Structures are given as C-alpha cells and as structure tokens.
C-alpha cells in the first residue's frame, strides 16, 4: 500500500492524468482536482504529503490556493510544487513567503516532476528529523 500521498491540481485534464499516472506507477497514492476550491477541500480532508498545483486556474488561482492552505493549521506545512506556463510569474519573494518549494515551467517532463517530488519530500523529511 502506498505510504505517500500526492494531490495534483490543474484545470487541464491531460496534465493531471499524466502526472497522476507517473506518480501512481512510482508508489504514490494520488488525489486529483481540477480547481482550487475542490483541491482545498481534499487537502483539508486527506492531508497529502505534497501538492502539485497549476498557477493559472479559473476561480481560485494557484497562489490563492496556497495562501488558503498556509492560513489553515492542518494544511499549513504541506510542501508545494507549482506548475506554470509563465516562468516569470512568481518572484523569489513570493515563493519564500508562500513556502513554494519549487516551480516547474510548462512544458515539463513527468520524470522531472517525479524527481522533484522525491527531492522535496526528502528535504522535508530531513527538516522534520533535524
């Protein structure tokens, strides 16, 4: 049984599907959402180990979703990887302020997503252990 849980959020179904398959094939339990509001509810309910979210989504944007997570004690410490179609959208200050571990620009490679997820989880575990 998978011991690591990932939440994937993107309004593009094909993006969600490809990342989900990659992570599932590599031992992750995967939750998916196509908008920010549903993602927030899933995060509160399931407390995933990591969240991969799109930047630009209708309704709640990626940044607003992260702000909401950080403001909620149960979800405040979930590490976040952001997928973005515009590399210059997020400043380093914003990343630091919102606790975004890293940003991946589209078009991205599923291998790159997997290795980034593994790295972020390892760093989080080290911080928690240290």
């Amino acid at each position, binding site marked *: 049984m998978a011991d690591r849980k990932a939440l994937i959020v993107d*309004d593009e179904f094909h993006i969600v599907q490809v990342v989900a398959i990659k992570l599932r094939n590599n031992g992750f339990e995967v939750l998916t959402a196509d908008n920010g509001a549903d993602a927030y509810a899933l995060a509160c309910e399931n407390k995933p180990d990591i969240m991969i979210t799109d930047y630009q989504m209708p309704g709640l944007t990626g940044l607003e979703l992260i702000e909401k997570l950080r403001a909620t004690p149960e979800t405040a410490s979930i590490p976040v990887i952001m997928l973005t179609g*515009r590399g210059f959208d997020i400043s380093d200050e914003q990343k630091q302020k919102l606790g975004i571990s890293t940003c991946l620009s589209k*078009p*991205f*490679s*599923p*291998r790159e997503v997997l290795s980034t997820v593994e790295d972020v989880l390892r760093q989080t575990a080290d911080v928690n252990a240290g």
Partner: protein
Amino acid sequence: MNLKYPIWIFIVVLMLLSICCAMAGLMPMTALVYLGVLGGIAAAGLGFLCWRTLKELGELTRSLSTEKPSVAADVVLLKPLVTVLNTALQKLSEPIQTVRQDNQDLNLQLQLLRRRKNGVETILNSIQDAVLVADSQDRLILANPSAEKLFNFKFDSSRLPILSDAIDQSALLDMMLKARNSRVCHVRHELTIKADGENISFDCVLSCVTDDAGRPVSVVAILHDVTREKEISRAKNEFVSHVSHELKTPLASINAYAEMLVDGEAQDAATIRQFCEIIQGQAGRLNRLIEDVLNISRIESGLMKINRQTNSMALILRDSLEMMQSYAKEKNITIHTPPSILFDQVYVDKDMMTQVVVNLLSNAVKYTPSGGQVTVQIEVNDVEGTITVSVTDTGIGIPEQEMSKLFGKFYRVEANKNFAKGTGLGLNLVKQIVETVHGGQVFVRSQQGKGSTFGFVLPLAAAGQPAV
C-alpha cells in the same frame, strides 16, 4: 555762371549814378529818380544774391544726401563753407560708407532672423509635443498650442505669466527648475499628467539655456505623449504572454505523454492508444491555435488573402451545421435550422464566413448544458439591403458587465471559464472577419442563466458582383 562780373557792374553803375546825382546838384526830382533806379538795381542784385545762395544751399543739401557727398566746383557764394564741408566730407566718407554697409548687413540679418523666427514658430505651432520655456525669473516666455491645450490656458506673449500660475503641475515645475538650476543641457524624465480624468504618460526632455558666461537664462521643456506607445507595448507583452501560455499547455501534454510512452509508463495496448490519441488531439489544438493567431494577425495587418465571391448564406450555414452536428450530438443538443429564403446572396469569402458560423455554433454548443437547444436564424432586410444571421442558445449566458469585452483578443468570461475550455480568440476572429474583412457588424444579446444570441449583419450582394 561766375558771379564776379554782375557785382562789379553793379558797383560801377552805382558810382556813375552817384556822380550824376552830384552833377544834378539842386534838382531834387532828378536825384530822387536816380535814387529810385539805384534802389531798384540794388534790390534786384540782393534778390539775385539770395536766390543764388538758396540754390547753392539746395545743391549742397542734395549732394550731402547722396551716397558720395561732394560739392560742385562752381559754387561761389558759399565757397569757404563748401571747402570746409568738402574736407570734412572727405574725412567722413569712409566711416559713412562703413556705417551704410553695416546698416545694409544688419537689415539683411534682421530679415533672415525674422524668417528664421517665423520658421521656428511654425514648427513649434505644428508639433504635437507640448513645448514650454521659462526664463530665469520663473516667467513663462513661450508655450506652443499643444502646451496650451494640455494645460488648458491661453499664452499671451505680451503679458508673461509666472510659470506656477499658468501650470498646475508641481512635478513638472520641479523638473524644470531643477534642470535650470543644475544647467543640464538634455535630461529625460517620465511624467504622468492627469488630464480630462485620464492619466497621460509623457517622455519629458528638459534643457537649460545659458548665456555666454554660462549663467542660466531659461529652461525648455518638451513633453512627448507616450501613452499610446506604452499601451501598445503593454498589449504586445500581454499578447505574447497569452500566446506562449496557450501554446505551452498543449505542448506540455504532447511532451509529457510522449515521454511516458518512451519510458514504458503505458502498460497496456489500450493505454498506449489513449496516450497516442491525446498527443494527436493536443497537436491539433496547437495547430488550430497557431492558425487562429496567424489569421487574426494577417487580417489586422491586411495581409490575409481574401477571395470574395457571391455566395448563398444558406449554403454557408448548411456546411457549417454539417461540421457541428457530431459535436452537438455528443452533448445531446438540438440545433434548429432556419427555413430557406429566396434571396440570400452575399459577397463574401466563403471559407472565412464558414469559420465565422462554425465559431458561433461551436460556442453555442460549448456553453449550453446537455439537452439544450441552439437555434439558427436568417433574416433579410430588403429595404436596408442586409442579411442578419443569429445563433441563439439556451446556455449559461454572460454577465452584463462582461458584454463589452467579449470580442477582445484572449478575453474569456471569468464566470464561464470552468464551464468550457477556450483560447479567447474565436470571437475576436469572428469580429475581424465580419467587420474588418466584410464591412459587416457583429452583435450579442445575453441573459445570465438563460442563454445568449450571437450574430452578424452583412450587406446583401449587389447586382454585377462575381458569382462562384
């Protein structure tokens, strides 16, 4: 004529008369006659002398007023004066010539300066940039019509106003005074001025004018309106940003699914097929997007190849409906078609007009929930010579405040983004084809939650326009 002889004659006659008088002795009447004759001759002589003197003075005056003053050699009565004058004139002639030449040069230069001044004033009055000049006492000494219009005042060169009284823009005044005090000859600043309730951006160039000793005499400010340039630059950046985002989304899917296939992540034949279909679908989406962007760009720049011929609008509708039937069937949406009409000929590019109708039908089906209705109508107005095509749906509708922006490039109704995907280019393309290419007009009516009607009006084909 020499005056010596008449004078001597006069004297001799006078003496003779005196002798005669003496001889006459005691004959007083005869003496009186002699004296009368003598007086007459004397008066005539004096008159002659006065006339002669005046004549010579006239000649002298005329001579002095000529370019080369000199006095005639036969002047007798005023000879001493003439001699002195001639000597003085000879001494003065060179400086007089120089002054006269200088005067001519100055007149020429004055003419040139006047001509140059008129030229500069014409240039200043013609340019769109606002020009202001203030002197060292903070008086406004020049303002062109663009400046008068921008700052809403009338410049009167005979009553120079204090700069701050004429222009109520503290940032600009500070810049001008700083430029004058620091004696800079060319410095640029960005400046925003609020006029008629709108912010106008200026590229402001300031230059200090100094005298020969380097002291500041005045300061010149030239304000170039860059609002439009800024807007174009912002729109261009936004467009590039939108296009790159829209291109990257299908590209990301193609890239990711291709990599999954290479890595063997698709574990069965069905999954492999699904991945391939996704790649194909996303490649098609990418192509359509590129075509839409290129078509809009071609229409805007006038480079689109347009093949206008007389076509039947009903046939264009029929072709478009055929293309959309399967999509409508997938969503269980019924499309109601219009009854045929007698004269529906329009002078249009058939492929472009088909794209217009397909875009409108596609939007209607896309934003209508399953089981809904789409109605296509066609109406001819014989009086105005126009044809109106409309597509009405029973879809989710559009909020009132968004209606004016619907035909903008990349614009998508925020509230409807969750309902269906789109690039925000379809309606812009419809507007460009109908209005820019065919001189028609698009229209929209909508009620949120009840549905929308999108359509266009085109002129009917005129007699003699080439048919297909």
